[in-house]
């Protein structure tokens, strides 16, 4: 039962990602108003002043005060980034300087008028895209927005005001934003207007839409309030779910909207987005491609509709099926859709009848899926919508097939021409063959035409040929009158057969075309994958991709690889066929750094010459694929898809090559390490075995029995010399180990007191005759270190003292706690270190100028290496009272816990 109250993991994630998004991504705050003149900019500046008082670094990216004194006064004390001046067609425009804002890196940037369209030649067509980039750089943004500019509300606004809004902001960019409603009762606004408090610029903007009518304002205010309230409700629901408070849980709904080439689809899409918003669910936009709509170019409106859906946050799916309802339901099942949104059939009686049939079929097979039928108004304004945002995806696409480019008029012309020609031929043949046989030539020509033309022209050809046959050949000739029943039947049958046959052939051909188009895509991808599978190096991958793009798209292309971790290389790969200018490289670098397509036919820096697709695998940038398409118009959805598939495939292959390279180099390193280790081990063995023999023999000699005094001295000399040699060998091998990087510290808990005691014991003989002060109390915290390495480091420090200070001078060894570090100090009363030696004593083979003969200058460098391998540091200094002091500093972590004492 507790399962019922389990918080939805998605909701938890959403709440977490919202909370976590703050340190990396900047936070967006939107001051939302119902119309111009309500005081959004004023409210934003007030909030900015407060933020500044709170000590935040606030700058003005772009603020339009419309010359209002109160507003200007509020900008005081806020540094403003100078605007960028753009000359365009003789007009001087000033825009926000995006790069300057990014370079300035404030904590908070103020950017007025979120929905503004940038001047041509700017990096992004829209200001909200600039803001998105600022946010991505980790900078918070305050901005202002009127409710009519929110994409999903434009329909409603249009219905109220009768004007179409072109400057829109996609709902998804507002998804993570904090919304602050700037509200003003309409009477107040009207009053402000009357007393001249709404200034020229705003008045012009608003007047365009006839906004300043009280009825309008009341409606707009309601939309704004509802939007803001909906947003608050949504945040509350996220919280409720995350906190596991019982409430109206997410129902698991998923919406699907059917998208066609109709301009009415856009309304359905917006409607579904609002619905999905209020249900707080995901939604899909699905287009079913059938043979009928596959003939001819993909209509611009369809591309536009799908782009709109994507922009509003839908997952866009395109599927191919002859049967609209079957395709739709298949996608619905695959994606666990619970509700399907379709448009209410409308238009001509034929369109209505067809729509009803589709709907019936959909209802019959929908099973557990709900079908929502939504009315969409006839709307001439959107179909004739100008290229408001310069959105290139919406312009006329080109299809793969050349022959389907033929225009409708051309097709009808061909149909009429051919039928006319056949009629003429029949006129010649009729006397020889009889009037019934010529019907067959007509039929033949209609079927023949069906091989090349669409359905409309075929229907025309069938009708026309039937009429012509009747008029010119059926007796009585030159009338439409038919004499006998037999001929009448013939005429009727002829028309039906011609029409049906023609339609059938056209349909079959249409299917074949659609198949061929799909097949071409599949083949192109297959060829690429197959060719790439054979490649054995990065160079070959690039060569193959560039060649394949040239063949499939008739385009030149270049590949810019990523250099090091995340910088784009300056020069394209030598196999590239496209020359990358400095400007293009800038665009490519942008695409690379942001992981988004940029350049021509995109929303990012669209004035570039080439299209730049970032190559990524596993979230790691691998480079940029730059393609310069020959066409002036933007590529079709198909082509774009295919190009992106190419880019993905290329990224995968580059990643494979990268992995292969790194695997190879790591194998090489491992091999050389193994060799080095073997060598070191055998040298160690060869040097030590004779030493072991000498030591053992000497000790045996001393033990063996009564020696003469001279023999005792000699044996002692041998023992001392072999000790010294042994130490040297040990130091040399240690240095070799350090150099080769074979040193591995086995970190474990060590007792500092124990460490000092063992080190002292090992150098006892060398320190003989010196007063020794040891201050290493038990109870010092344990440190994580390699006991052997550290003990040897300490031993070397002590031995160093023994070599470099006069015999008999005292030595002090102290271990103590200093902050979060354990300090082990070796202090002597020798001459100390010369100033020029101080920084260099730990260098390999460095010997102080005053050093006596003997010694290799290795001891201290080993100390440094060993201590650092334990995560510590070692320092040398002179003591104020004379003598040198060496300090080993080790980090002290949290004390490990001990088990409870056994009873």
């Amino acid at each position, binding site marked *: 039962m507790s399962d019922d109250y389990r918080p939805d993991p998605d909701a938890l994630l959403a709440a977490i990602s919202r909370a976590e998004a703050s340190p990396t991504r900047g936070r967006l705050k939107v001051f939302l108003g119902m119309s111009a003149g309500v005081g959004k900019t004023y409210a934003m500046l007030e909030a900015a002043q407060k933020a500044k008082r709170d000590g935040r670094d606030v700058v003005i990216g772009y603020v339009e005060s419309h010359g209002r004194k109160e507003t200007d006064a509020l900008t005081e004390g806020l540094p403003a980034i100078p605007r960028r001046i753009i000359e365009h067609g003789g007009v001087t425009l000033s825009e926000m300087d995006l790069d300057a804002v990014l370079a300035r890196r404030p904590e908070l940037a103020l950017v007025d008028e979120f929905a503004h369209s940038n001047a041509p030649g700017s990096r992004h067509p829209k200001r909200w895209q600039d803001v998105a980039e600022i946010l991505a750089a980790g900078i918070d943004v305050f901005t202002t927005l009127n409710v009519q500019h929110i994409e999903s509300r434009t329909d409603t606004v249009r219905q109220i005001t009768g004007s179409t809004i072109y400057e829109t902001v996609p709902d998804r960019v507002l998804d993570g934003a904090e919304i602050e409603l700037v509200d003003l009762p309409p009477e107040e606004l009207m009053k402000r207007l009357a007393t001249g408090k709404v200034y020229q610029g705003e008045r012009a903007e608003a007047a365009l839409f006839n906004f300043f009518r009280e009825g309008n304002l009341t409606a707009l205010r309601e939309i704004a309030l509802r939007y803001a309230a909906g947003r608050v409700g949504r945040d509350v629901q996220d919280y409720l779910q995350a906190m596991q408070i019982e409430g109206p849980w997410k129902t698991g709904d998923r919406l699907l909207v059917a998208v066609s080439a109709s301009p009415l689809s856009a309304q359905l899409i917006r409607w579904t987005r609002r619905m999905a918003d209020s249900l707080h669910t995901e939604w899909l936009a699905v287009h079913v491609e059938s043979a009928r709509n596959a003939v001819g170019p993909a209509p611009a409106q369809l591309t536009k509709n799908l782009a709109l859906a994507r922009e509003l946050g839908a997952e866009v799916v395109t599927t191919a099926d002859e049967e609209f309802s079957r395709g739709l339901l298949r996608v619905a099942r695959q994606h666990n859709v619970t509700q399907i949104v379709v448009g209410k059939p409308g238009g001509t009686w034929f369109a209505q009848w067809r729509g009803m049939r589709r709907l019936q079929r959909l209802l019959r097979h929908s099973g557990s899926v709900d079908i929502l039928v939504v009315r969409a108004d006839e709307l001439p304004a959107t179909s004739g919508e100008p290229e408001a945002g310069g959105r290139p995806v919406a312009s006329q696409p080109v299809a793969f097939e050349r022959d389907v480019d033929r225009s409708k008029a051309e097709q009808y012309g061909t149909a009429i021409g051919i039928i006319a020609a056949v009629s003429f031929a029949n006129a010649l043949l009729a006397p020889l063959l009889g009037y019934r046989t010529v019907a067959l030539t007509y039929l033949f020509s209609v079927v023949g035409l069906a091989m090349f033309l669409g359905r409309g022209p075929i229907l025309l050809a069938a009708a026309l040929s039937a009429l012509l046959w009747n008029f010119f050949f059926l007796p009585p000739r030159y009338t439409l009158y038919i004499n006998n029943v037999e001929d009448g039947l013939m005429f009727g049958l002829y028309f039906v057969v011609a029409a049906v046959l023609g339609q059938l052939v056209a349909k079959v051909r249409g299917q074949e075309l659609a198949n061929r188009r799909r097949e071409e895509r599949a083949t192109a991808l297959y060829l690429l994958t197959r060719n790439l599978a054979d490649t054995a190096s990065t160079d070959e991958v690039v060569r193959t991709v560039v060649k394949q793009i040239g063949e499939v798209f008739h385009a030149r292309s270049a590949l810019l690889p990523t250099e090091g971790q995340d910088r784009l290389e300056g020069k394209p790969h030598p196999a590239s066929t496209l020359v990358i200018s400095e400007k293009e490289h800038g665009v490519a670098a942008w695409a690379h750094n942001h992981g988004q397509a940029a350049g021509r036919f995109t929303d990012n820096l669209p004035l570039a010459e080439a299209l730049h697709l970032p190559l990524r695998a596993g979230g790691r940038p691998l480079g940029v694929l730059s393609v310069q398409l020959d066409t002036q118009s933007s590529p079709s959805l198909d082509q774009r898809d295919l190009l992106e598939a190419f880019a993905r495939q290329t990224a995968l292959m580059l990643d494979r090559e990268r992995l292969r390279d790194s695997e190879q180099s790591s194998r090489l390193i491992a091999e050389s390490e193994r060799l080095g280790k073997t060598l070191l081990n055998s040298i*160690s*063995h060869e040097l*030590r*075995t*004779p*030493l*072991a*023999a*000498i*030591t*053992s*023999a000497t*000790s*045996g000699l001393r*033990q*063996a029995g009564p020696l003469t005094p001279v023999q005792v001295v000699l044996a002692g000399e041998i023992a001392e010399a*072999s000790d010294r040699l*042994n130490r040297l060998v*040990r130091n040399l*091998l240690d240095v070799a180990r350090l150099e080769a990087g074979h040193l591995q510290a*086995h970190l*474990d*808990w*060590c*007792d500092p*007191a*124990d460490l000092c*005691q*063992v080190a002292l014991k090992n150098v006892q003989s060398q320190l003989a005759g010196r007063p020794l002060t*040891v201050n*290493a109390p*038990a*109870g010092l915290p*344990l440190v994580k270190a*390699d*006991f*052997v390495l550290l*003990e040897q480091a300490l031993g070397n420090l002590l031995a160093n003292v023994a070599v470099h200070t006069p015999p008999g001078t005292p030595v002090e060894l102290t271990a103590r706690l200093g902050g979060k570090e354990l300090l082990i100090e070796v202090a002597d009363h020798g001459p100390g270190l010369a100033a020029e030696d101080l920084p260099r004593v730990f260098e390999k083979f460095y010997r102080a100028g005053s050093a006596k003969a003997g010694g290799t200058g290795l001891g201290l460098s080993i100390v440094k290496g060993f201590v650092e391998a334990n995560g510590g540091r070692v320092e040398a200094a002179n003591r104020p009272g004379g003598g040198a002091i060496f300090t080993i500093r080790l980090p002290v972590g949290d004390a*490990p816990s*001990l*088990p409870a*004492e*056994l*009873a």
Partner: protein
Amino acid sequence: MSDSVPSAAKPLVLVIDDEPQIRRLLTLTLEANGYRVVTAERGQEGLVLAAQQTPALILLDLGLPDLPGTEILRRLREWTAVPVIILSVLDDETGKIAALDAGADDYVTKPFNSGELLARIRVALRHAEKKSEPPVFHTGHLVVDLASRRVTSGGQEVSLTATEYNLLRLFVRHAGKVLTHRQILREVWGPNAETQTHYLRVYLARLREKLERDPSQPELFVTEAGVGYRLVPVPEPV
């Protein structure tokens, strides 16, 4: 003095080392101190000799060319408990620990002093002969009465916690032998504590504090750097 001992009573030591010079020296030293010696150059040969001659003790070099030391130990331990002392080079703590955990009794680091080697051999042989633990253990000023669980240091009774006493008893049972960290942790704290070295560091410091004459210069509980600890049997002070 060795001459007076009848040859059959002399303990037989098997030396397995691939260096002829070390074999010669060891033979000389051992024979001079009352042992009989057989030598083997290879691990395989050593295993055969161990089976045929049943030596009282084996000196095993860890760096043999044909078989790794741990492998030889594993095969030996399949059938015999004969004490094995490892001859190892410096800086090979991992190898020493592996050999000790595989059943070696002790180790000597090359280059070794012959006095030290002979001492280790005597301890190992004594442990091997010992049938049962003597109820009372003496070392230096320390007296441990295992029967009555009484511990005195310099005549003063010392009170130990249960864990401290368990630790001390383990050392006493293996007096003179090196014990690896892992062996001690397993015996005293159980197999789950084998990597909790800090238990050992803390408790050893406590034992030294309570039992050593000068805890800052321990004589009884000696640290074997990187390997473990050893309780040194010290002759009783006069």
